[in-house]
């Protein structure tokens, strides 16, 4: 393959496409990101909150969107579709159709006047039709790129040749009715598809009365209602009478797990989506009674079960396992639900509102796309990929991620995106490159200059201006000392206003900028980059959060909120006056990597990095490679895990870039991103090896839980799934004829002490059940379970096993099955399993020949040692805690350290493979650079004041400080310092200071306060 190509095409700009683009761009590759809607962002902007942390979806996404739009290596093509792909991996020619926008993006300032004046109202698909938009409009408030487009099917002029109002009102003359669709060609080395999913449309489905009954809405519509920035401003009311609902019924699996509509798959995310909505709704509406009607609660992800428990116990959400068969409307618009319990009892319950938990399905246009670019789809019309190649399409060089090849939630999409990148780089020319170091000589020198502060007060649409008198604040700011310019802006963060800020800097010769808007957490980088573009050092910037802290927190006290906004701006200006330019210093990056753990994940990561040309040290505690995969012999799809294992091991052993250390223990890891030093010892020979590397991937895996329950260890007939799988493999059943086999799920999982789902056990039980049926057709299988969590396409195997006559008996955690030896003196004795059957509504005693326990996955105890060594956190279950559960699933807060596989949380083979690749691709975003830049806001020492007492050294959690033995003063390691400031507050001499949060700056804020 020709690996000269540095360009790559990403199709679909949802969170997966964005993540893939950012990873590729950070590796120095040229990315073309195409998207068929007018904005990047995909589904996430429509979401109010994300589970299980209730983070604001738009808040966590918008920095990524901005980064994507601003990245010099990413070219955005919105309203564009992929028409075809010709050529071979490494050298594809892609035809892209760029639809006419009828508005020149170069000229449009997104002022919104055109939309205000446009006479044509159409349903706003972003707000699920709950709001109207115009034929000329911006997709949503924070859409990127910030530009307006005309809907050519709705525009009066384009359809009927009359109107042209927008052209008349547009001052910058951006309207261009003659705009034409364009076909462009791109030469790329690889293609990543991430066109996402659609939500199931329940119109006419079931007897749920969607669109017939006003108060029956879909979960996506409800999400928009809950959203504080949505059409109802977060005040949920019924469509029929605008009254706040007091009871809400959630119906699950609408358009999922339903063979009658050819959707025998689970949409994976809806259970959590509903739990989240029930919690958020309860927070919005006092006294609300939410009820969830469900088949199984599939809270299988990391920390999901804790969230589910919280909904039940803390928020009092009622979960009823049942099937809703009918909804009828009452005269007052309320809804009467008819539902059937497991035991067949039919009940009715009235609700003020009903939310349909709609499933996820392939995008409507996927059939055409698949035909155009010659890729295969699966039986449900999702893009086809296989368990052992979870990110590959049927066409070489074309990879897939996100929901396109199966329903996924956000972190899985992000993992898949980074994983797909690791695949794509195989066809691309990734080399080491130099990052652009800011050149202070090109910056305006502000030293000795009097501070000339510019303040920009943001309306944030009505987010701020709806409460705070923004114009008044701007006027007040003008009166503050050193403020040379002050103005109010509609959306400070939109490209047009960013450009405005830049031009004001030039116009008024500003040397400090204060933006009063939203939170610096999401928006500071954007503004810093902006003033840098205007020639100012990016750290000459300060933000006042008048949205969260004024307009939102004091929405009923507009006058006081305005007064407080003034104070906050004054504080910001006070700090800004003291700001000094800061530089980000380069830190060299060693391109080698250490991978801890030689299971499937570790080996896959190693191969990915090695293939990209990086030297890898792979360290495994055990003598043999393979980890848990050594115990897996079957896949429900018939693929052979042992072949995967052997192939992977052989590839690892033969790879010239991989240095393998089995039976070895990591003694110490020192250093920091780009510059780690590790010492390992061979457990047998005690031989020590030392090596240096730039990144670490943690792939320590998981252990099978050792249970004492259900007579395990006391009876030879009670075995674990792992032991059972080996029996099936060897076709050796020591107890002879099997008549009744009882499988017990959730052994150790989802209860006190291990409040998490081990995720793989349901599928494992199903898979092994099917295998047993293959060997012994007549054996009776009884599966005692709590919720069957065969998510995604695993559902069909579950129905398979059910169809083969397997009995599924649901039990609850307070009434677990009881296993007894029939002859308690005989370890080989047959067993009685006593379990309460919810369907039969009575106790059942099964005379079992074999009891198979689906035991939990435990985090290895050694995680703690490694966590300390690398200074990375573990969650309460002992699993490694990633930097952000949604958007940084394979990263740690500590730069240069990554996680994958079971070390992160329990997962299946395909998921481990995806995350292993993701971790390597995240590592490559560092390792492909010759150096990275340290933070600007770090500690610095004034040695003339330092008495060398060493308080700070003890206080620093990052080992970033040490005493210079010669000079007896402290020195700061720029690369390690995270800028927390603990050392600064410990230094009574004032010798240490935190750049960007200096003593002087903070004191000047106090001095600015008028505390009367």
């Amino acid at each position, binding site marked *: 393959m020709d690996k000269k190509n540095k360009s790559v095409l990403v199709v679909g700009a949802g969170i997966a496409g964005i993540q893939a683009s950012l990873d590729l761009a950070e590796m120095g590759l040229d990315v073309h990101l195409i998207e068929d809607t007018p904005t990047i962002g995909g589904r996430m902007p429509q979401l109010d909150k994300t589970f299980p*942390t*209730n*983070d*604001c979806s738009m*808040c966590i996404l918008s920095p990524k969107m901005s980064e994507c739009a601003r990245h010099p290596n990413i070219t955005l093509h919105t309203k564009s579709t992929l028409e075809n792909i010709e050529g071979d991996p490494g050298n594809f020619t892609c035809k892209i159709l760029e639809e006419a926008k009828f508005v020149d993006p170069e000229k449009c300032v997104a002022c919104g006047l055109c939309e205000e004046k446009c006479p044509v109202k159409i349903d706003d698909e972003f707000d699920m039709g709950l709001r109207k938009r115009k034929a000329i409009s911006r997709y949503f408030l924070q859409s990127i790129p910030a530009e307006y487009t005309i809907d050519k099917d709705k525009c009066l002029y384009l359809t009927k040749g009359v109107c042209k109002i927008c052209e008349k009102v547009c001052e910058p003359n951006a309207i261009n009715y003659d705009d034409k669709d364009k076909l462009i060609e791109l030469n790329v080395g690889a293609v990543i598809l991430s066109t996402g999913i659609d939500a199931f449309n329940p119109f006419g489905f079931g007897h749920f009365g969607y669109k017939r009954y006003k108060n029956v809405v879909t979960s996506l519509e409800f999400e928009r209602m809950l959203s*504080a920035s949505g059409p109802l401003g*977060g005040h949920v009311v019924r469509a029929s009478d605008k009254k706040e609902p007091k009871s809400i019924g959630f119906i699950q699996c609408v358009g999922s797990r339903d063979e009658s509509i050819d959707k025998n798959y689970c949409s994976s995310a809806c259970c959590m989506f509903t739990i989240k909505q029930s919690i958020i709704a309860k*927070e919005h509406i006092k006294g609300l009674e939410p009820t969830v009607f469900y088949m199984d609660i599939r809270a299988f992800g990391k920390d999901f079960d804790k969230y589910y428990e919280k909904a039940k116990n803390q928020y009092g959400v009622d979960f009823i396992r049942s099937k809703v068969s009918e909804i009828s409307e009452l005269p007052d618009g309320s809804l009467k639900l008819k539902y059937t319990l497991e035991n067949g009892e039919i009940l009715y319950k009235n609700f003020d509102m009903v939310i349909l938990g709609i499933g996820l399905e392939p995008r409507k246009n996927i059939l055409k796309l698949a035909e155009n670019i010659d890729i295969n789809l699966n039986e449900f019309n999702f893009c086809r990929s296989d368990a052992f190649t979870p990110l590959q399409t049927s066409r070489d060089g074309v990879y897939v991620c996100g929901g396109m090849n199966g329903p996924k939630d956000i972190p899985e999409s992000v993992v898949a995106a980074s994983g797909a990148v690791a695949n794509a780089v195989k066809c691309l020319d990734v080399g080491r490159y130099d990052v652009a170091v800011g050149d202070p000589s090109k910056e305006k020198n502000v030293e000795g200059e009097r501070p000339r502060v510019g303040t920009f007060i943001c309306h944030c649409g009505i987010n701020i201006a709806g409460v705070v008198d923004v114009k008044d604040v701007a006027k007040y700011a003008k009166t503050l000392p050193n403020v040379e310019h002050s103005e109010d802006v509609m959306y400070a963060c939109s490209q047009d206003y960013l450009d405005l800020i830049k031009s004001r800097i030039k116009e008024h010769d500003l040397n400090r900028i204060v933006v009063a808007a939203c939170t*610096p957490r999401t928006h500071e980088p954007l503004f810093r980059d902006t003033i840098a573009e205007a020639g100012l050092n990016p750290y000459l910037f300060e933000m006042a*959060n008048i*949205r*969260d*802290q*004024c*307009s*939102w*927190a*004091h*929405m*009923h*006290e507009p006058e*006081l*909120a305005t*007064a*407080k906004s003034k*104070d*906050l701006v004054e*504080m910001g200006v006070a700090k800004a006056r003291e700001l000094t330019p800061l530089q980000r210093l380069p830190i060299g990056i060693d391109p080698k990597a250490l991978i801890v753990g030689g299971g499937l994940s570790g080996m896959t990561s190693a191969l990915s990095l090695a293939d990209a040309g990086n030297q890898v040290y792979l360290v495994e505690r055990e003598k043999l490679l393979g980890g848990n995969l050594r115990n897996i012999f079957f896949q429900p799809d018939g693929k052979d895990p042992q072949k995967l294992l052997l192939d992977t091991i052989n590839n690892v052993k033969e790879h010239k870039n991989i240095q393998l250390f089995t039976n070895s223990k990591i003694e110490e890891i020192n250093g920091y991103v780009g510059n780690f030093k590790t010492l390992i010892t061979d457990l047998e020979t005690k031989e020590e090896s030392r090596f240096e590397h730039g990144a670490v991937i943690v792939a320590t895996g998981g252990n099978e839980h050792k249970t004492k329950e259900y007579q395990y260890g006391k009876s030879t007939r009670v075995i674990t799934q792992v032991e059972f799988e080996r029996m099936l493999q060897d076709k050796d059943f020591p107890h002879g004829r099997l008549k009744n086999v009882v499988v017990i799920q959730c052994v150790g999982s989802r209860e006190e002490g291990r409040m998490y789902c081990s995720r793989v056990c349901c599928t494992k039980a199903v898979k092994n059940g099917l295998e047993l049926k293959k060997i012994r057709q007549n054996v009776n299988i009884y599966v005692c379970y709590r919720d069957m969590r065969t998510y995604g396409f695993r559902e069909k195997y579950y129905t398979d096993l059910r169809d083969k006559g397997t009995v599924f008996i649901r039990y609850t955690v307070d009434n677990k099955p009881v296993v007894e030896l029939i002859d308690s003196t005989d370890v080989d004795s047959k067993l009685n399993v006593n379990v309460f059957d919810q369907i039969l509504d009575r106790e059942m005693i099964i005379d079992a020949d074999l009891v198979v326990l689906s035991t939990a996955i435990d985090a290895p105890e050694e995680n703690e040692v490694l966590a300390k060594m690398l*200074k990375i*956190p573990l969650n309460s279950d002992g699993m490694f805690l990633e930097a952000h559960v949604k958007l940084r699933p394979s990263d740690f*807060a500590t730069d240069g350290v990554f996680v994958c596989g079971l070390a992160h949380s329990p997962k299946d083979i395909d998921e481990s493979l995806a995350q292993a690749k993701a971790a390597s691709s995240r590592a490559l975003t560092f390792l492909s650079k010759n150096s990275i830049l340290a933070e600007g*806001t770090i500690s610095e020492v004034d040695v003339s004041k330092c008495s060398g007492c060493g308080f700070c050294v003890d*206080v620093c*959690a*990052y080992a970033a400080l040490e005493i210079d033995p010669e000079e007896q003063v402290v020195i700061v390691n720029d690369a390690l310092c*995270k*800028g*927390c*400031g*603990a050392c*600064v*507050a*410990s230094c009574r001499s004032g010798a240490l200071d*935190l750049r960007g*949060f200096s*003593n002087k700056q*903070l*004191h000047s*804020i*106090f*001095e600015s*306060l008028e*505390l*009367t």
Partner: protein
Amino acid sequence: MAGTGRLEYPTSIMALRVLCSSRIDPVFLLKAYLKGADGVLIGGCHPGDCHYETGNYYTRRRFMILKTIFDSLGLKSERFRLSWISASEGVKFAKVANEFTETINNIGPNDTKNNMFL
């Protein structure tokens, strides 16, 4: 997060941003107190989940030192409060902010603001 959740708290609370509660030198609290602040509230991550590892434990010790000095001198240490409020706990922030404001209202205004010696 209180803002994101539209939770209301008194407008008299003015936030000053630092990256970690451990950045807060008790001298800042002194400064604010002598400037006339009626109260100073420090928000930090919960013990055990400091975003910056162990910073909050140091904050707690420093806070206790200042508080004890105030008690020892017969000054109103209730004007200082340290509260563990994680970034996502908007509800707790609003609750603490309301409570603290009430505490301060009960103590009454801080006389330092009128005293030329301070």
